[in-house]
Each structure stands twice: as C-alpha cells, then as structure tokens.
C-alpha cells in the first residue's frame, strides 16, 4: 500500500545524473518483474522488465528505493558501482499479492472484484498424493476434492456445487485427467471460483477454473540451478475397511456342502452357512475320489480369518523430480524430469508415470520475445485394479462374499490339482460365484497406456511499455489404450452373457485419441491516464480459435478361441467392435477492461462472443459479459488502528454455452447409450475420459443397433430435437469482504454468492403418448446460494523463535429448484417430483412404514411396504454436506517446521453400499452381532449341527396391523385411527429378515455422510543457511517426514466417504447417493528430500 502512496509524489526533473543499471531479485535470485525503482532524492522512477532488470537516471550519491508487491521495500545507497543486484525479502505481512487470473493476466489481489484463491505448488510436493489435484483438498474454501481411492481414478472436484472445472496451464485450457500433471513443475495453482472469475474463458470455465502456472527458468546469479525433489511413501494399514464376521462360513440357511463333483459350479452362495465348530463338511480341498466321485468331509474351521489382510500388501509411491533451469540476459530455459511409480496395495497392481517438461523463452530483440513450452507425460500400468459389484473386484471377494472357511494362501499355487489345470482352470475355493484372488491378481490383467502432450509456442511483440500483442498456438492431445486380458477359467457366471464354465476367457480393448488446438491473438494495454495519472487502465482484447477432434474404438471378443492369446481376432464368435468420433470448432472474441481511480476503486469488465459448431446456424453465435467492482476502504477511510486492511468487492457474470459434455465414455457407450457393464459385460467400471467436446444431444437421428441374432437394427432418438434451441445461460453474483487486523496478524475473507443456472438445455419429459420420452427445451433454472469463509492468522510470530500460522476454510451452499418450464409445476428428476423451492439434493426412497408411536410396522416377519409409486417414497436425507472445512496449522521453529491439516465435510446422508451388500452376503460383522448375532446363533443351535432344519428366531421389535386396511400417502399410513396394532411376534430366519426384508428398505442403509480426516502431517528440517553457505554445491537442503490420510473420523468406518464429494451437482444433474463399492486404501507414511544446487 505504502508503495503506491509513495508513487504518487511529483516528478521533478533533476540534472547531472548518470545511467545506473541493475537487477531486482528475490532472495533466491529470481528476477522480479514490475518492481518499482525510485530515486529518493529526485523521485525519478522506473519499473523492472521481465528479467528484473532496470536502468535509471541517478547521481552516484543518491538512494534507490526499491519496492515490489509482496516484498519488503528496501533502500540502497548507490556506491558508484554499476550493474547492482538488489535482493528483496518476502513480506510475510504483505497483502499485495499477485495472482494469475484469466488469460494468464497477473493482477493484484487487492484490485480483484471476485473470489480467487491461490496456493503455491511447493506446498503440495512434500506430503504428496500420487495425483496432484488430490492435494488441493481442504486448502481452498469452496472447493471440495473427492479423492478417488482407485488407482488412476479421477478426483471428483466440486466447486460451489458444480463439477467439470476447467484446467488452464500457463494461460491456455488443457484437456487433462489430472494425473498427467507433474506437481514439481507447478509454480502455483489459482482457483477461479465460478463464472465471475472465469467468464473470459467462456463456457468451459462456467463452473470455475484451476489455473496452473508452471515454473520458468531461473534468474540465479550463476546462471543455472538444479532442484531435486524425492519422496517415498508407504501405504499400509487400512483407513476405512468393512469388518467381516468369521463365525459362519459359506452356505445358505446354515447349510453347506461342496458337491460330489470336481467342480461345484452350480452353487452361488452367500456366507449364511454353518457355524465354524470343527464339524466335518465337504469342502473344496476335502479329499475327492475321482472314481466314485465322492468327497470326504473335513473339519469346518475359520481358516481364513485374515484372508484380506494376508492378501493385501504394502503400497509404495515413489516420486522423483530433477529440474534444471538456466538463464542469461536474453533467454531462460527450464527442463524437468519426473517419475512417479506407484505399487498398489492390491498385489500385482502398479502405475508408472513419467513427465518431461521443457520451456524456454528468448528475447529476439527488445520488442520481440518468443517462448515455447512442451510437456510430455507417459502413464503406463500393466495392471490396474477394478472395483464394482462383481467377481472382478476384491472388495466383492472379501467383504461382500468373504468367507473365512478357506485360507487365501492355499490358493497361491494357481493351478494346483486336482481342480487346477495349467493354463485352463484355476484352483479356487469355489466355482459358482467367486474367483481365487491370487489367480485374479496374476492373470486377470487390465493394462493402461496413455500419452499426453501439451505445449505452446508464443510470440509477443511489445509496441512500447504500454502495449503488446501476443500470438500463441497451443496443442493439448492425448491417446490412451486400455486392454483387459480375461484368463481362461476365470468365473464370470451370471455376469457376462457368453460366459460358460471352462471357457477360454476374453480380450477387450479401448482406444481413445483426442487432439485440440487453441490459437489466440491477444492485444494487451496497460497505462495510467488522466491529468494526474489518477486513472489506471489495463485492457486486453483478443480472438481465439479452438479446433477439436476425438476418435475412439472399443472392441471385445466373445469368448477366446485359443486360451491365453489376447487379440480381438482370436474370438470364437465374431468380436464386437465400435467406433465413435467427433469434431468441433469454436471461434471467439473477447475483451477485458480494468479501470482504477486512485486508491478508491477498481472496475473490471469482460465480454466474450462465441461461435460454436455444435449449434445450428442462427443460434450459434452469442455474447456474454461480466463485471466487478472493488474498493480497498482502508486506503481512504480512517479505521481504528487494529483494522489494518478492509476491502469490499461485488461482481456479476453471465456465461453461455451449448451441447458439449465434459467427459466421454467408451465408443460402445457413445454408440449404444448403454454402459459397458449394464449393456454388454455385466461387470466392470466404465471409464470416463476428459473431453469437453460435442454431445450431439439435439439431433433426431437413427443409430445402428442389434437386438436379435446379430441382425442389424435401428434405434430412433427418444428425445425430440429442438431446432430453435438457444445456448444455456448461467448468471452469478457475488459480494465479498476481506479484512485484516492487528498488523495483518489476523484476517478473514468472506464471500457470499448466488447463481442462477438456467434456463439450461434440458431434456424435459413429455407425455408417453407422444411416443417420445423428452424434448430439448431451454428450461429448468436452479439457484445456488452460499458462502465461503477463510480465516488466516499468525498467533505466534518471531524471527528466531516459534512461528505459528493457521488457515481455516469453511464453505456452504444450497441448491434449489427456481423455475421449470412454461407452466410446469413439478419436475420429475432422479426419482422424485420436485417443486419450485425444493432442494435438489433431497433423496427420496423406500422407507419403513411406522405406526403412530414411530414403531416400525411388520407383516409376515419382514417390514411392511408402502405402495411403490413415486408419491409413496419418503425423504431420506439431503445428499450434499451442510458444509466443508479445512484447518491447516504450520509451526516453525528455527529450521524445523511442523504442519498438519484436518479437513472434512459435515452433514448429509449417503447409501452405504458395502454395508448393505455385506449384510446381504452374511459377511458384514453386524450380521453376526447384537440382536442379529443372538438370533443367528439361536437359529444355528436349532439345527442341531444341521441334523434338522433351521427354526426362525429373529422377532423384529415393532408392531403388526391386526385390524383395518391402511391408506397411504407419502409412504405413511394416513388412517392410523382406523387401524389396530399389536406387537410383532412373527419370527423370521435371519437370512430372510436381512436379504428379503431390510435389504429392500433403502432407509436402513442411509448413513451419515460426515467425515473428518487428518489429511497430512509433515515434520520438516532444512539445513541452516550457516551450513549451506559453506557448501560449494548446495543452495538448500531439506528433509521431511510425511504422512497422508492418517486418521479418519466417521459414523461408520466401512467406507471412505472422501470420494463422494458431490451429492447433487448441476453439471450433469445427477444425484449421487453412494451405491458404490470402492477399493480399500490405507494410511501413507514416508519421507521427502529436497535439494537445490
């Protein structure tokens, strides 16, 4: 602030001076551009160039005052020497931070009229996650990061209730899976929160953007620098894991026996079998006489209490980065190599990722500068795990249908006889439902191979110190191949239609290629205007072209002809193959104007025109604006001294777009509209890739299909195309207050926002009798209101002693239905009829029927069901959290630092799939404990060790209707007064009560969605400067012990709620009520070493 005040002095000329040249740098030697160098005596001044260099007229006795935003202003006497270097220290109390905003424009935070938050890349490379974006969790208020527990799983990012954020690297949008970014190459992440900040990027930025600035070449005195960062983390100890009972084995209704056959493949059993009491039962490894076909029973014991623990291994994540940067007076260059090797906790799973980054700039002349950047990333995995409800996933094997009646290590000999046949049939604990986990790990392989390249070339021509023109062209391209080798003998019973017992397996291949080019020409202008230079103007105007194309292939064999040969041509019946591609072209024009008057206010305005190839001519060109105003009150209002800073800001923005989608599925899904799981294979997770291309969702068309005996057939659109469709529209407004107290030791930033998403492009239902299911309309508007709050403080600060910094982020929002379409009063979506004003994350499902005293009503021993129509579903909770938060503490003492972060999401409900599946399977610990456990034991005893049939023992606490006929509304009985009730006395068998009873009641499985994690802890030590300075080589050396995901607090610890960041989101309008199985992941511990040469 002072800096600016100082600048406003008069500009009297002074005689008898000489030219002094020099350079302003950071303490680490990086040139500071735009620093102000002033001669105190004369008030002559200049600003440094991009390299930090300056030349100023001064006499050799004067004093230079050097200031720059974010640094402590210093004074330096000119001692006669030319070419002086002035190093500025970081100002820890600085408010004059600079952040990167849209189109790479650096702006002072204090002048910005909307909400942005920045985090330095260096903060995320110590206690690191394999995925760099996962590291942002808890650090940005309003941003929810749903870290995906699966290897190569894409984190679910939710910013103010919207998904599909735009990623921008060095000013240009890129298409990324978030795994192809090397965190060591990142200087900073800036989160532009919503349209207000990112309107300039157009519709791709309508949900906000994560703007990444990469590191550049050094301004080091010696001309070069080398940085090394290495970290190794071990993953061990489950963070959240379903607990299994080990009292009962596989079977049904307390009975089990392996058939008197070699392969018993006709039983698909749950874990509702006999209790482990050492009794003799025919089992998979009991002696079998091939002549008589008789199996001799062997003792039934819990041999595999720790099967899961014995199977899973310690994961390792090893990351290394070496970066070389160099510069001279005309150029700079940075080269960086990174590798990340991850060994998964599931055996034989791993991921390797290599990144090579190169960027360079060269000043051809004073006016012309060229720069280029290239980033190459290769990901490769011979096998990544898959997870869903099916025989392909370990959680299904161990936690849904996990019996303790076999020892997993007995299956390590994959083809052990008598069942095993080398190369054809594995030795397994059963052949009806499950597979041997060791066989899966070694033979059922899903490979991944992806190459990402992005980069740009740019030329900037400076007309003068105020105006410049930049031409840039960028590419973002990737290609990916995924294959799946399904080995001979693997069990896909009842899942894959063409499976048969003893088959030779299958092979699948999924190829995707994306190419996109963004080219823009941008004119920049920056000047002070007016008689007294009271007005500052920063302006930008440009045009851009985006060229996009995508193509994909999906193929699968229909049972292999030769076992072990994984090729599409090796198919018993003709392989199924699909191709799908798209192209798009977007032309845009945009401008941005920032106008400031003295210290009083800054006004910003942007506008953008897009021309999209995805809309029909006539409606395909459209304009949208944004505007903001901010004012630093403390610059001109005299506040009490404890208030050191106060700023208000208000902004509004509008964004339009149409008929694109953020992700794309396999060619099979794009062609048929069905998931590969639901429509083809019966198992497996569908892979979605980042896309941002055309959806083609508004065209009446025929697609090719096949329904019968491979004959060709057609499908016609089910949604009626609308030739008059206009782009969708989003508007948002926000207001914020930023205050600092006690000499900036304490501060807060508060933002309130509201936005209207709509009219959207919405496939609104039509009467069934039109013979269509929906028509595209410009309808449905939802409203979001919320706030974000950041509190930062430095309770302790001492140059030599203990320092303590705290950052607390908190945010909350609600999304409601604001308007539907025409005169419509209800919106049928996600299984409920919503009316205006309803929260859209409200979930309605099947619930218990209750009497007047809230007792559950039973009938025939199981819960009584209300009618099943939509109006009798009950409210089962809101899916979005009430709020999310993160607390980050950093302690520093001399050369030691300790930091830790707690973050979490509080409130909301979720459907706990693994709980329900594990209960249905008889595996979950709750199925054998408490009242269920007592009834299960009593029922077991009633069989007299299977001498007689089991007798029902579980009498659910509740009532039954003994008189009258209930009438229902909203899932409740409305005529309670006409009914008579009595206590339920009907016993049910425990398996029936759970599987045929409560498993059909969604209410039972809704659990609290709240959780808190101790996300990261780092204990670091840097070698003191006194030692470093003696070394010839090292500039900085630091070590850290790190931990990630160390503690997990939640009501139920059988699922890691982290990945479910979104309940309802307005990007795809889906309601995520859970319903997913996930891989079990662990705590991570490790160490990090950083060296600078």
């Amino acid at each position, binding site marked *: 602030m002072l800096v600016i005040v100082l600048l406003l002095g008069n500009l009297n000329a002074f005689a008898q001076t000489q030219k002094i040249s020099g350079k302003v740098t950071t303490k680490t030697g990086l040139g500071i551009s735009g620093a102000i160098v002033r001669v105190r005596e004369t008030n002559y001044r200049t600003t440094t160039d991009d390299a930090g260099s300056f030349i100023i007229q001064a006499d050799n006795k004067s004093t230079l005052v050097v200031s720059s935003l974010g640094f402590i202003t210093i004074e330096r006497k000119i001692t006669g020497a030319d070419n002086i270097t002035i190093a500025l220290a970081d100002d820890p109390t600085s408010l004059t931070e600079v952040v990167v905003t849209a189109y790479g424009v650096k702006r002072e935070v204090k002048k910005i009229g909307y909400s942005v938050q920045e985090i330095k890349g260096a903060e995320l490379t110590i206690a690191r996650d394999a995925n760099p974006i996962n590291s942002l969790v808890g650090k940005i208020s309003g941003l929810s990061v749903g870290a995906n527990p699966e290897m190569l799983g894409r984190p679910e990012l939710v910013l103010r209730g919207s998904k599909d954020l735009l990623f921008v690297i060095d000013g240009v949008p890129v298409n990324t899976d978030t795994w192809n970014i090397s965190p060591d190459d990142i200087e900073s992440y800036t989160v532009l929160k919503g349209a207000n900040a990112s309107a300039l990027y157009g519709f791709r930025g309508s949900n906000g953007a994560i703007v990444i600035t990469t590191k550049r070449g050094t301004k080091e005195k010696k001309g070069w620098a080398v940085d090394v960062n290495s970290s190794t983390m071990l993953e061990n100890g489950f963070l959240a894991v379903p607990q299994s009972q080990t009292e009962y084995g596989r079977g049904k209704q307390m*009975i089990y026996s392996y058939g008197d056959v070699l392969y018993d493949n006709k039983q698909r059993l749950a874990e509702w079998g006999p209790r482990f009491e050492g009794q003799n039962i025919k089992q998979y490894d009991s002696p079998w006489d091939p002549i008589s076909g008789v199996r001799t029973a062997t003792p039934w014991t819990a041999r595999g209490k720790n099967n899961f623990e014995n199977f899973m291994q310690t994961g390792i994540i090893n990351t290394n980065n070496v970066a070389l940067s160099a510069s001279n007076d005309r150029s700079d260059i940075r080269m960086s190599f990174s590798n990340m090797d991850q060994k998964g906790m599931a055996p034989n799973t791993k991921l390797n990722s290599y990144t090579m980054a190169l960027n360079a700039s060269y000043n051809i002349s004073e006016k*012309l500068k060229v720069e280029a950047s290239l980033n190459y990333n290769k990901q490769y995995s011979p096998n990544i795990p898959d997870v869903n409800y099916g025989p392909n996933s370990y959680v299904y094997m161990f936690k849904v249908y996990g019996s303790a009646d076999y020892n997993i290590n007995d299956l390590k000999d994959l083809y052990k006889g008598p069942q095993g046949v080398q190369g054809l049939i594995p030795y397994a604990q059963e052949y009806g439902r499950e597979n041997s986990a060791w066989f899966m790990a070694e033979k059922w392989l899903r490979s991944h191979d992806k190459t990402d390249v992005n980069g740009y070339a740019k030329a900037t021509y400076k007309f003068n110190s105020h105006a410049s023109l930049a031409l840039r062209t960028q590419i973002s391209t990737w290609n990916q191949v995924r294959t799946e080798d399904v080995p001979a003998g693997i069990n896909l019973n009842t899942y894959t*239609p063409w499976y048969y017992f003893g088959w030779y397996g299958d092979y699948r291949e999924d190829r995707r290629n994306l190419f996109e*080019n963004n080219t823009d020409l941008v004119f920049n202008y920056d000047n002070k205007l007016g008689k007294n230079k009271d007005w500052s103007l920063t302006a930008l105007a440009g045009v851009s072209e985006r*060229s996009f194309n995508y193509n994909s292939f999906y193929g699968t064999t229909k049972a292999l002809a030769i076992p072990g040969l994984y090729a599409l041509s090796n198919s018993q019946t003709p392989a199924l193959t699909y191709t799908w591609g798209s192209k798009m072209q977007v032309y845009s024009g945009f401008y941005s104007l920032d106008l400031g008057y003295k210290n009083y206010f800054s006004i910003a305005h942007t506008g953008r025109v897009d021309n999209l190839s995805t809309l*029909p001519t006539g409606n395909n060109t459209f304009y949208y604006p944004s505007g903001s105003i901010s004012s630093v009150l403390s610059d001109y209002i005299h506040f009490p001294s404890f208030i050191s800073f106060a700023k208000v800001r208000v902004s509004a923005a509008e964004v339009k777009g149409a008929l694109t989608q953020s992700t794309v599925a396999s060619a099979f899904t794009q062609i048929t509209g069905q998931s590969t799981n639901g429509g083809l294979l019966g198992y497996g997770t569908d892979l979605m890739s980042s896309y941002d291309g055309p959806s083609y969702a508004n065209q009446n068309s025929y697609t090719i299909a096949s329904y019968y005996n491979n004959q060709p057939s057609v499908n016609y659109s089910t949604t009626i195309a609308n030739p008059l469709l206009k782009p969708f529209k989003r508007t948002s407004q926000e207001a914020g207050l930023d205050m600092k107290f006690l000499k900036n030791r304490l501060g807060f930033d508060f933002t309130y926002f509201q936005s209207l998403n709509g009219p959207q492009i919405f496939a609104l239902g039509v009467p069934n009798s039109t*013979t269509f299911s929906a028509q595209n309309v410009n309808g449905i508007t939802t409203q979001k209101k919320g706030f974000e709050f950041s509190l930062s403080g430095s309770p302790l600060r001492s140059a030599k002693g203990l320092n303590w910094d705290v950052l607390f982020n908190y945010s909350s929002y609600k999304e409601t239905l604001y308007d539907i379409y025409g005169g419509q009063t209800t919106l049928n979506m996600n299984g409920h009829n919503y009316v205006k004003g309803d929260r859209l994350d409200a979930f309605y499902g099947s619930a218990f029927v209750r009497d007047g005293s809230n007792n559950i009503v039973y009938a025939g021993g199981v819960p009584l069901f209300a009618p099943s129509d939509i109006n009798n579903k009950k409210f089962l909770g809101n899916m979005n959290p009430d709020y999310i938060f993160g607390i980050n503490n950093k302690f520093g003492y001399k050369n030691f630092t300790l930091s830790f972060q707690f973050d979490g999401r509080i409130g909301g409900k979720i459907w706990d799939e693994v709980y329900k599946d594990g209960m249905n399977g008889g595996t979950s610990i709750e199925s054998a404990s408490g009242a269920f456990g007592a009834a299960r034991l009593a029922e077991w005893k009633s069989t007299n060790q299977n001498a007689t049939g089991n007798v029902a023992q579980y009498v659910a606490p509740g009532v039954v209707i003994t008189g009258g*006929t209930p009438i229902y509304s909203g899932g409740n009985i409305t005529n309670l007064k006409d009914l008579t009730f009595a206590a339920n006395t009907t016993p049910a068998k425990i398996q029936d009560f759970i599987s045929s009873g409560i498993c059909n009641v969604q209410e039972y499985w809704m659990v609290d969605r709240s959780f808190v994690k101790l996300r990261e802890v780092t204990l670091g030590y840097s070698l003191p400067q006194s030692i470093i300075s003696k070394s010839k080589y090292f500039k900085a050396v630091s070590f850290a012990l790190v931990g990630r995901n160390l503690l997990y607090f939640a009501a139920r610890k059988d699922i890691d709620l982290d990945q479910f960041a979104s309940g309802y989101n307005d990007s795809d309008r889906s309601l995520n009520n859970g319903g997913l199985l996930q891989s079990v992941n662990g705590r991570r511990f490790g160490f990090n070493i950083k060296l600078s040469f």
Partner: protein
Amino acid sequence: MKINLILIGLLATVVVGLSSCQKGDLFANPNVAAESNTIPASLILNHLTSNLMKEEEPVISQVYKWNQNIVSNYSYYFGVNAYNWSNTSDTYDNIKYCNLMEAQAKKQLNNTTNVYFALSKFFKAYSFVWMSQRLGDIPMSQAGNASISTPKYDNQHDVYKQSLALLDTANMIIAPLATGANASKVVDATGDIFGLTFAQWQKVINTYKLRVLISLSKRATDNADLNIPAQFAAIINNPSQYPIMTSTKDNLVYKYNTINLYPPNRAGYSPYNMCENISQTFFNVTANYNDPRVYALTTPSAAQITGGKSVSDFTAYVGEDNSKSIALMSSYSTDGKYANLNYTRYMSSATGANAEPYVLIGYPELCFNIAEAANLGWVTASDATWYLNGIKASMSWYGLTQGGTVAVSNFDGSKVLGNATVDINSFLANPNVAYQGGAAGLTQILTQKYVAFFMNSGYESYYNWRRTGVPTFVQGGAGIGTPSNTIPLRWLYPQGEISYNTANYNAALTNQYGGKDDLNAKMWLIK
C-alpha cells in the same frame, strides 16, 4: 526490425496452418444417420419385432409370479411376489417405430399397401390394446402425432373399436399379398425376427383379433356398435377371408439362440432354481387333476421324494402359497417342501434347446378362445372339440405324447429322480377335466387355457383371471403386498402422462374412476 517482421510472418503462417478450420459440416453427428436419411424399412421392422415382447413377459420373468405359476422364496435373486404395482410401462415406443416404418415404406415402395403397412396396423392394435388392458382409457387417436404435445385420451371402448378396425385393415392389406406362391414366402428374412410367411402373419393377425374379441366378453351384449359376437363369428365362419392359426407351427414365437439367450440364463437365474417354487395355484389345476404336464414343467418336492414317493405320484408335487410372506417361506428350498421348475428343461441350456421358445400368441389359446365363444353361443362350433384341441395342442407343445416317458430330475438337474409315464388319456378322463359343458364347461375351458399359458403369453393368465375369476388365485395374505392384500385390477398411468399430460390424465380419471388413479378400480373392459 526486418528480421522481426519475417519471424512474425513465419510464425503466423505456422500458427494459421496448425489451427486451420476443419472442413465440412461439423454440426451433424457423424456417428448416426440423420432423420432425413433413407432407412431400409426392414431395419425398422427388425426393431419392432425384436421389441414386441416386453421385458417382463418371457419365460420365468416377473409376470409368472403374478400369474401364480411360480413363487419366489428369496427376493434377492428372484424378486418378490408382491402385487405392489405402480406406474405401468407402456408400448408407445412401438407406435413411434410403426410411424417411422410407414413413412419409410411409403417412400421406398411408393405405395401404402405393402406388407410393412399391414404389419404396422397389427403392431399398433397390439400395442394400444396392451396398454388399455392395463389402464383403461389411453391416448390413441392423437398419440404419436408430432404436432400434438398433449394427446387427448380415447375412452377404452373407442380404443378397442379402433384397434379392431386396425386389425381388419391389416387383414385386408395382407390378404392379397398372402396369395399364391407368396403365401409360403417369408415376409422379410432380416426384418422379421419371427420368420413368418405372409400367410402366417395373416393368421397371427386374425388369431390375435379373436383374443381381443373374447377379452371383451363382458361387453359383448351392451355395445352394439362393437358387434363383438358377430365379428368373432365372421372370422370363424369365413376362413378364406380370415385365415387363423391351424397348429402350433403358426405360433408367434420368440426363438432363442446363442446371442439371445434363454431368459433364465440371460437373467442369471439358472444357478438359483431353488430360490423359486411352483405356485400351489398352478398345482391346484394340474397335479390335482393328474395332469402329466407337471412332469415336464416342474420337479417334485425333494422332501416328498426322500419321503418315498415316486416321481409319477402327483401328490409329490406340492406348491407354495403366493400370498405367504416371503420371510416365512422355505428360502432356497432348503427343507425341500415345495416343487421347483424343471431345471433340465428351463435352465440347463443357455439357448433354451431343451425348452419351448417364448409364445406371444399361440394356437392352444386360440382353441380355448373358440371353445369359450362357442360355450357363450357366439359361434356354432363345438366347444367340447375346441376344448380338447386346445389341451392336445398344449400337451404336444410341451412335448408330451400318450405313453411317453419323462425323466424327472432334481432341482439342479444333477440327479435323475426317476421316470414318469405320460398318461394323457387318463388325465382327459379325470372328472375335473372331462368336458361338462355349460357354466362348468366354461370354467374348464378357462382353467385349461390358464394351464396352457404356463410361462407364455405374458399377462394373459392374469387378464383372463381378472375377467372371469378362473382359476382361483390365492390372495389375502401378507405376500400379496398391497394395502388390503388383494390383487390389484390395474396399474397407475405412466409417470410421464401424470406429469406432462396432467389435464387430459385428470379428465380420464374423472371419466372412469371417480377422479382417482386407483389400482383396485374396475375398468370398462371388465365391469
């Protein structure tokens, strides 16, 4: 400066080259055919014939619990038995494809008298009747009209009247095509998955019309304009103008193959045979009457066999009660009290090689429909003869012949329990089966029609029960799962109609059910 300019020029050239616009139409989806494309009519016919059978209708699907052929004893695998119905599914999709097929056929064949038009009329009638049976009044005359976004409802009477007219038109269009050499020619080898000839399609159309007419029996006398008995008689009395099926070879059947697997295999039911039992309702009118069909279709109760009974002993075939709470059933059949489906027949082959294909419209039903009409005096045919024809056709459809033997296996087909000898003659001599004529005869006809509907013809068993009360369906217990534990008489309108055609929907409710979308209300058809 000059160098700068050259460099800028070069760079600009490269940039423009890199980003040059993509040629051609980028708007249209390159992965699909536009609506203006020529689409061979046979591809649309393929869609229609492939999808004529609704998902809930084929063998061992949900409807056979509601038809009280089978009972689920474990909901996780076989679902529940409850009649907890809500919004109906619908067949308006068929109407869309009929309209598309007519437009393409007219464009490509330049006339409106080709076979695609005949079949389109039939599919339309079939689809509108399908929905009206479930709901009552439905939008028909304005349905599928692109210019009408909220189609008006036609009352049920008009739906049937128009449907009968459509069937008449279908017969008239196809009649001249189904003559001479054409008669035995397959209509469209790739488009018609049923693979019927011109003559067979004509028979299907008229046979189906008889089903529709007999389903109107309650309205036979008070709706002169529909002329129900006379229309029925016109078909029976004029076989050259209205040919009908003459054997099960004329059945409209969905045949399974290696791609389209037999439903128990496709739905993953095959390892779970023990999770369902045969309904006692079915055994009441089969095993109780010494019906040899139980040998072929079911397997006896395991406990009865271990108790010493032979597989040919009809008392070894014990059914489960559909109205019993699923929690009180013998889940997974662990105690072997109740009979299961014949595993070998229905579940052992993925392509259904050991079982019958799925019948949409069959010859045995036709026989019973004629017998019923004769019993009611609509036609002068012999009800006793057609009754016997129906039983014999059904027996032969299930592969049973007098004196033949059936190997009866256990519930998972792993063990042959014994051989049963088929004695159709003694079955026919059973006093409950030997035709009695009159009102008792009518019950016998309806009972045998019900048995012949085992695992076929979708909802027809339920509709016949709803119309006539024959045979007696069990209800009243918790397993029925409705508020009063009685079997509902209809479905709720589709949610899309309720939400987006609200005014017309409400008018239809007022017109029929006192303003309430009531599952227990009687529609005009069965009043």
